[in-house]
């Protein structure tokens, strides 16, 4: 029995210990239950959020870029669909064999093949690799048809910027290209692969408008970032179309007309509204390659070209206006009360102290009044006039006519040119103004500079008497042509009779046989132009040279030849178009620049013979397009 009682003790002890163990296990189970409650009830919201973060990935969708249109709605910058073939390596067994198969439908060069294989090696196998970009429709359809033989290959549609008018428009429209590191503003859109932003022209100036706002798609991704499925998709809002005042046809004509020179620019404005109808530079560049990215060689060729094709000379080139400035001196004198009939004698030079100021005509013009002085572009008359008028009135009038200040055109990097004043000279050079400098300024030389755009604005103001501002953007950019009323311009507050004196003189420049640009006149009845020649020295003519007789321009190296300028408006009777032409190192304004201005003004009037026949213009515009 001792053994039995011993067994009983042992069992009792066992039962007791089992109870303790059971309680212990129950306690630990309660701990688990409590922990579950804590994680799944108390902290649940936090973890739900973390889980969503884990799982949902928002990817941006690039919106279509806004179009850039001309005044008739023709596309100056548009979006072309492009197709590229992409391959997801993990969906294909043998990438090499697949590329062989692909090359039957679309040529794949050795370099491209190497790149694909390299990328496939480097990237995770579920990430797509671009096999080929810019596929033709034919290639796309061949690949689509043979899709069963091409596992893992898909065609992706994208958009690329295209510029139907190419070189003639590039200085206005600009171009887009890849976002550089400095341009990253934190806007996630900019960080999309392949995203392009405007780098010059309208593309740059209105980049944020054209860009639109991105859409997004929510995708479910797994732990390694692979897309499982799309949860939602919201398309972006396309960028706003931007409508310009440019007439693409006239622009193309102007560009073509300038292309006979080495370097030239021209601006055509509507004298009543300030609408910029054409703003052409030659040489120019093709904006399309910028979209894909230039090679170093292409870039070097553009940058090293001495005629500087990348520069928009119409807004950024500051030239001495030469004799085209004389109208300003004349108006300043008239405003001062000087009689236009008052004459001055031109012996070929003027002396001031012991300095001599020469007229371009070595033996002088003889007796000149204002009308004749402009017609003949007599320098001495304006030397004499400026002595009386003084620099202050001249600069004041120049500024009222739009020189020396940025015109505010919607293009980046516009230059203001320079209208010198006494204060300006003291503050920048540190010397007081000299009378001699007034004389030089009066013939548009010396410190004074202006851009071709400013010269066009000056001409428009002369022709209209209004404070015309150049307008490149039509607001709002509605696609139907009826369009918006041009903004009313303020009056220049120059008496009409003063303007009329100057206009008649400009009329004589081209239409009087004795005028400097008579040979470049418009002979078409009712379309005649009035203008003013200008020739601006690039270098000073030395005494020795003058003694030896002025060297002919053609005998100088190109870089040292004079700039040729011409400003004009037409028709004379009821001015509607004005035009400025600057030919760099082109020699004389009458021989080089005036014929160009003439042809452009003829073309402008040919395109719009009745002045405002919009329906006809529209019809012709669409015919030109087709």
């Amino acid at each position: 029995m001792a053994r039995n009682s011993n067994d009983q003790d042992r069992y009792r002890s066992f039962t007791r210990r089992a109870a303790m163990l059971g309680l212990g296990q129950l306690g630990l189970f309660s701990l688990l239950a409590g922990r579950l409650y804590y994680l799944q009830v108390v902290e649940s919201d936090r973890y739900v959020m973390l889980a969503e973060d884990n799982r949902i990935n928002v990817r941006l969708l690039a919106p279509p870029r806004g179009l850039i249109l001309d005044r008739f709605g023709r596309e100056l910058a548009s979006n072309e669909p492009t197709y590229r073939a992409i391959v997801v390596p993990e969906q294909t067994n043998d990438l090499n064999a697949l590329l062989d198969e692909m090359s039957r439908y679309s040529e794949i060069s050795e370099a491209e093949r190497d790149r694909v294989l390299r990328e496939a090696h480097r990237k995770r196998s579920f990430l797509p690799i671009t096999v080929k970009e810019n596929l033709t429709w034919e290639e796309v359809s061949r690949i689509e048809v043979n899709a069963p033989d091409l596992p893992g290959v898909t065609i992706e549609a994208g958009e690329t910027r295209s510029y139907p008018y190419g070189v003639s428009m590039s200085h206005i429209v600009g171009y887009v290209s890849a976002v550089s590191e400095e341009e990253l503003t934190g806007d996630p859109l900019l960080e999309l692969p392949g995203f392009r932003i405007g780098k010059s022209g309208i593309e740059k100036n209105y980049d944020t408008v054209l860009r639109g706002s991105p859409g997004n798609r929510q995708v479910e991704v797994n732990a390694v970032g692979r897309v499982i499925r799309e949860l939602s998709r919201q398309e972006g809002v396309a960028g706003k179309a931007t409508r310009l005042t440019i007439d693409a046809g006239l622009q193309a004509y102007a560009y073509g007309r300038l292309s006979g020179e080495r370097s030239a620019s021209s601006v055509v404005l509507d004298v009543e509204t300030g609408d910029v109808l054409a703003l052409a530079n030659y040489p120019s560049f093709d904006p399309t390659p910028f979209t894909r990215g230039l090679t170093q060689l292409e870039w070097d060729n553009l940058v090293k070209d001495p005629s500087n094709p990348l520069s928009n000379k119409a807004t950024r080139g500051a030239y001495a206006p030469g004799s085209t400035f004389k109208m300003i001196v004349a108006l300043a004198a008239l405003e001062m009360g000087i009689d236009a009939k008052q004459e001055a004698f031109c012996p070929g030079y003027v002396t001031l102290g012991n300095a001599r100021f020469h007229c371009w005509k070595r033996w002088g013009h003889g007796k000149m009044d204002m009308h004749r002085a402009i017609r003949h572009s007599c320098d001495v008359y304006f030397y004499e006039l400026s002595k009386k008028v003084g620099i202050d009135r001249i600069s004041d009038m120049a500024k009222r006519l739009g020189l020396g200040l940025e015109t505010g055109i919607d293009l980046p990097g516009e230059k203001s040119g320079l209208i010198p004043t006494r204060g300006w000279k003291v503050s920048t050079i540190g010397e007081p103004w000299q009378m001699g400098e007034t004389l030089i300024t009066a013939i548009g030389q010396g410190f004074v500079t202006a851009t071709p755009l400013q010269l066009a604005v000056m001409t428009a103001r002369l022709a209209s008497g209004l404070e015309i501002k150049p307008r490149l953007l039509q607001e709002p950019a509605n696609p139907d042509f009826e369009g918006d009323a041009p903004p009313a311009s303020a009056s220049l507050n120059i008496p009409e009779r003063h303007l009329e004196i100057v206009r008649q003189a400009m009329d004589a420049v081209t239409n009087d046989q004795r005028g400097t640009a008579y040979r470049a006149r418009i002979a078409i009845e009712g379309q005649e132009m009035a203008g003013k020649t200008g020739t601006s020295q690039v270098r000073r003519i030395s005494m020795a040279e003058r003694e030896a007789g002025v060297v002919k321009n053609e005998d100088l190296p190109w870089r040292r030849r004079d700039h040729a300028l011409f400003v004009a408006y037409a028709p004379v009777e009821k001015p509607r178009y004005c035009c400025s032409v600057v030919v760099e190192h082109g020699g004389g304004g009458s021989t080089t620049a005036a014929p160009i201005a003439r042809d452009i003004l003829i073309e402008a009037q040919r395109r719009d013979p009745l002045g405002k026949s919009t329906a006809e213009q529209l019809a012709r515009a669409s015919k030109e397009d087709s």
Partner: protein
Amino acid sequence: MSLSFTSLRPNPRLTLVQKVWNISWGLVLLILLLAVIGGGMLYSAANGSFDPWASRQALRFGGAFLLMIVIALIDVRKWYAISYLGYFGVVALLISVELFGEIGMGAQRWIDLKVIQLQPSEMMKVALVMALARYFHGLNLEDIGRPTRLLIPLVMVLAPVALVLKQPDLGTALTLLAIGGGVFFIVGVRLWKFALVVAGALAAIPVAWQFLHTYQKNRVLTFLNPETDPLGAGYHITQSKIALGSGGVVGKGFLQGTQSHLNFLPEKQTDFIFTMLAEEFGMVGSLLLLSVYLALIIYGFAIALRSHNHFGRILAMGLTLNLFLYVFINTAMVMGLIPVVGVPLPLISYGGTAMITVMAGFGLMLSVFVHRDIRIPRQGPGSMD
């Protein structure tokens, strides 16, 4: 109640039919329920596919189930008889793993038998309980009070612990220590002795620390603090908590667990399968599963208390403790309560050896229950008492 022990009723001889009748079918039903849940979770882990896990696990379970029934029907005295042999056999396997074992997961743990990869450290959990049960079966309370009598079982526990530590598999080593300690506790070793051992162990840590290699120290430190390994264990536990917590009260629904299906959850078919269940079925589902385990453990306690032989009691209790440790360590780990150790969730996690070990354990528990009325003399079934 105690009358049945003092009665001199002869040991019953059970026919096969009686044995089958004696099987605790409630327990078997719970096991089947777990297997079904496990299959469902593996189906979900494969994103709604029987391939590759659920189907193979079902096949394995079929085999393991047969094994369990066979073990259950074998006389508990046979198990008593071979318990030491089994123990030494597994120790021999552990040593052979040390010598020829497959290198996997950076540790030597498996013997490749081509058909199945044996993991002797898992088998040791059962073998140790059997050997200790046999040893303590022969000891009365007075014997247990003598420290000298505890030396042999202490060596029985520490030898495999040392071998497993060398693999190295700290998790299993500690589990073996816990099982050994549990058996010591259940047979009535005085509590102050436990306190003494714990105090001694704590005192020995700084000394033992000096003998460890730097890489071993690092391993222990990482084990204790997974944050030092943010891309390894730390990442796992963070993702596990996110999945678990985002399940909320009722879960995201079967096959709808986003975290697990999007591969944020590592090893979702093995050690972290509870997380997936908790994500898909929420707190309700998690608690239900824990309740099934709790019910199994209660069955284990009941079997232990109803056994008429001490070997069976200790065996059932030790195996129940083993089951509990599996469940607790695994779930506490995925909930971030304890460091990450590789312990599967019994009958739910994908894997072969653990399933066989666990099912063999259930088989032994059932055998104890089937033969609950058989008495075994303290000197063993062969002796005349």
